[in-house]
């Protein structure tokens, strides 16, 4: 059914342009005006709304006074991945949503100002933090995503010896591989990692726990272990034709756009993305940028139930993404070459509310229809890393590691932060929350190790 569009073509230059950061930085004039518009509230609601508690009025005041280094320090002190968060935080749900100027005029552009100050620090190669006087304590962190990096930075400031174990080629986790580069350029992530590495943190890449080093070895060599492994692959759809060529995992798919090679050229293709979360939007907008002729997001519920942020939804619409609401895939059609040639779907309607309080989608009899697509990308959530959790013998619920308020897991001296402790009913998993969890685990560990030292001394 699908056409062979092998003559369609997109140049590498065009791809690079398509994947360049979409939001422009504030000009100096704009940043100074905007920073002076900030009321400099006392006990400001924006600070309360920031999971990492950045002193937002203070960093903005410092932009106004021309103290840009001080501004960057204020941001990065509270949030070790503050340059990334300036770009990826859902600010209208956090700081900007809490700004007292909402309704009065317009909220302050906090995210853009945060980017302005951190961009200055990046451009001027500023070293913002130093390691504390060395202690003899060793901490292992498994995973180098935002939670692991934040923990590492704080532990290094206390003078502890930190080693991060990263299974991937490069550190950064979600920020490096999972967030589309037109939102978060790789250079920003690299700068944040460099800051942390320059404080003496060791990152051992291509080192998977359970394969290259065992949990037992970690326990022997380190005083504490932080598990910050994130989540796994997108689960399978479990439907006929899923083995066809042209069926992708959204996380893998986004990742393929972040190594600079753009190996999955979609010039002229028609794409269906299954799911309507932020990762689905990422996969859809990446598809457009890879040259796809037409991209649909296929979702079994309606716009009201979708989990993508409103700004992501807007962004997808501006990219020309079509939305097939109340549509569920039932079967992937293959051609003679084993390639995707279509997607059979069924129309849904909303029925009774389920446990989450969301109305359960129910198929409408005899409503099946075909979508003419060459690529199917599944973006229906991510699997839990049950094997890793089991390897450490940690208590968990359906792959969500059980932790107390200080992020201590069930085993002594084991902590877990980030997506690995993110369970259902906790709202949105955010980079900024992961960073805060990493910080908090670091503070707990530091307290415990300090207390231990004092007791021993």
């Amino acid at each position, binding site marked *: 059914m699908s056409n062979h569009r092998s003559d369609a073509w997109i140049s590498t230059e065009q791809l690079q342009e398509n994947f360049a950061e979409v939001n422009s930085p504030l000009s*100096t004039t704009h940043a100074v005006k905007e920073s*002076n518009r900030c009321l400099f509230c006392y006990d400001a609601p924006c600070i309360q709304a920031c999971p990492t508690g950045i002193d937002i009025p203070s960093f903005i*005041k410092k932009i*106004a006074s021309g103290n840009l280094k001080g501004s960057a320090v204020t941001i990065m002190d509270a949030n070790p991945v503050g340059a990334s968060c300036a770009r990826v935080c859902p600010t209208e749900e956090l700081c900007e949503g809490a700004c007292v100027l909402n309704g009065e005029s317009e909220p302050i552009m906090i995210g853009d100002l945060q980017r302005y100050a951190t961009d200055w620090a990046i451009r001027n190669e500023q070293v913002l933090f130093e390691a504390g006087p060395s202690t003899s304590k060793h901490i292992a962190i498994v995973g180098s995503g935002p939670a692991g990096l934040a923990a590492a930075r704080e532990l290094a400031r206390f003078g502890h010896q930190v080693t991060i174990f990263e299974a991937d080629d490069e550190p950064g986790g979600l920020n490096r591989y999972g967030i589309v580069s037109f939102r978060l350029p790789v250079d920003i992530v690299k700068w944040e990692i460099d800051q942390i590495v320059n404080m003496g943190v060791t990152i051992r890449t291509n080192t998977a726990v359970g394969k290259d080093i065992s949990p037992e070895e970690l326990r022997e060599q380190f005083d504490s272990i932080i598990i910050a492994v994130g989540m796994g692959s997108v689960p399978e759809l479990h439907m006929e034709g899923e083995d066809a060529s042209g069926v992708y995992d959204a996380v893998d798919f986004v990742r393929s756009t972040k190594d600079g090679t753009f190996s999955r050229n979609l010039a002229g293709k028609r794409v269906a993305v299954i799911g309507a979360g932020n990762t689905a939007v990422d996969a859809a907008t990446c598809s457009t940028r890879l040259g796809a002729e037409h991209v649909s997001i296929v979702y079994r519920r309606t716009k009201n139930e979708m989990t993508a942020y409103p700004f992501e939804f807007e962004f997808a619409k501006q990219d020309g993404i079509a939305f097939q609401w109340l549509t569920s895939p039932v079967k992937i059609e293959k051609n003679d070459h084993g390639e995707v040639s279509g997607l059979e779907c069924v129309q849904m309607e909303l029925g009774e509310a389920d446990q989450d309080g969301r109305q359960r989608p129910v198929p409408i009899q005899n409503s099946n229809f075909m979508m003419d697509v060459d690529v199917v990308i599944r973006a229906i959530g991510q699997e839990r890393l049950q094997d890793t959790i089991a390897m450490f013998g940690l208590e968990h619920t359906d792959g969500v590691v059980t932790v107390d308020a200080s992020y201590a897991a069930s085993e002594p001296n084991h902590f877990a932060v980030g997506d690995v402790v993110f369970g259902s009913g906790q709202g949105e998993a955010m980079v900024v929350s992961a960073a805060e969890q990493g910080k908090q685990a670091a503070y707990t560990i530091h307290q415990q190790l300090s207390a231990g030292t004092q007791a021993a001394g």
Partner: protein
Amino acid sequence: MADLTTNVAGIRSPNPFWLASAPPTNSGYQVQRAFEAGWGGAVWKTMGDPILNVSSRFSAVSFGGNQVAGFNNIELISDRPLEVNLREIEETKRLYPEHAIIGSLMVEPDRDKWHEIVKRVEAAGVDGLELNFGCPHGMAERGMGSASGQVPELVRQQTAWVKEVARTPVIVKLTPNITDITFTAKAAVEGGADAVSMINTINSLSGVDLDSWNTIPNVDGKGAHGGYCGPAVKPIALNMVGECARTPGIDVPISGMGGVSSWQEAAEFMLMGASNVQVCTAAMHHGFRIVEDMIDGLSNYMDEKGLASLDQLIGQTVPKYSDWGDLDLTYRVAAKINNDVCINCNKCYIACEDTSHQCIDMLKDEDGNDILRVREDDCVGCNLCSIVCPVDGAIDMVEVARKVGDEPMTWNERQQLMANAGSNQ
């Protein structure tokens, strides 16, 4: 990190940021909160014979939607009993021994009264004294504040009386409501002042309510002039500091104030010769917490400039401050418009065309786009276009060659040359 410790005529503080004598330093509670926030010193609200205050007291001038561009007040000196102030000074000094507390004083021009208050306030443990010869409202009507501060002989005499008994450094705070502040500054030095501080507030009336026709502020429909301060007065204060710093005979430290709102103005005042700065309006607008950026910003600035201590900053611009007659008449700058940055608001064009020297042309480039170009030969380098330009980097003022045959020459040199030529004839 740069050393910000400060020494003003022997009064030491951990940083150069003092709260000025004003509502923020009215009580021990406030000054202790200020020290907790990081302020290096505080000049306690002026003590003297107890007074009565009115309601209301403050008003502000907003400009273009910006609040508190200027600030006006008709509050008088401390209305709390002297013994209460002294008890709280003693307590605050005990709790914060490293921070400077300066007692601001104002009494009638009477030798015995000055002797008495100096002794009592010094006994409470202050690090120094500041004589308030500056308040322009209320107290001046009773012969105090700026009324005595406008008479050099009264400044000299009262300073001398204080110095007869004072054991701590004496700062004389000067009023700007005078034609030439260097006269009163010299008088203070002649009286033995260890330092001078400036500026106190400027006579002002904030506004008139267009519905009630009352003055702003007013007390039950009646107004009186107040004292003006805040960001708007900075240029006036900065000049007075600079004039005193460069005038021979005023060779004592200067504590600068008037519109200091951030570390940037502080650095300007210090470059212009101030040993430290005092702040009031900015703290009243935002709270004591503003000092955090003042310290951090100044420290980062000094690191960036490679300065280890404030000595390397203080007074650096003073030798560059001179008389008009010493400026080079043949030196030239001209405006250069960067059309790639320009947003074509044409503000520079109309400012130049209507009110300056008609040297900007509105043109089209080869693609038909609007561009603006300066005729360099006609440009007098007045800066107006770059001042009204709303975009950073769209207009640069660049140095250009002197006109053919011109050599550097100041007005004073020219007058000298002409006088010599005349006498040679």
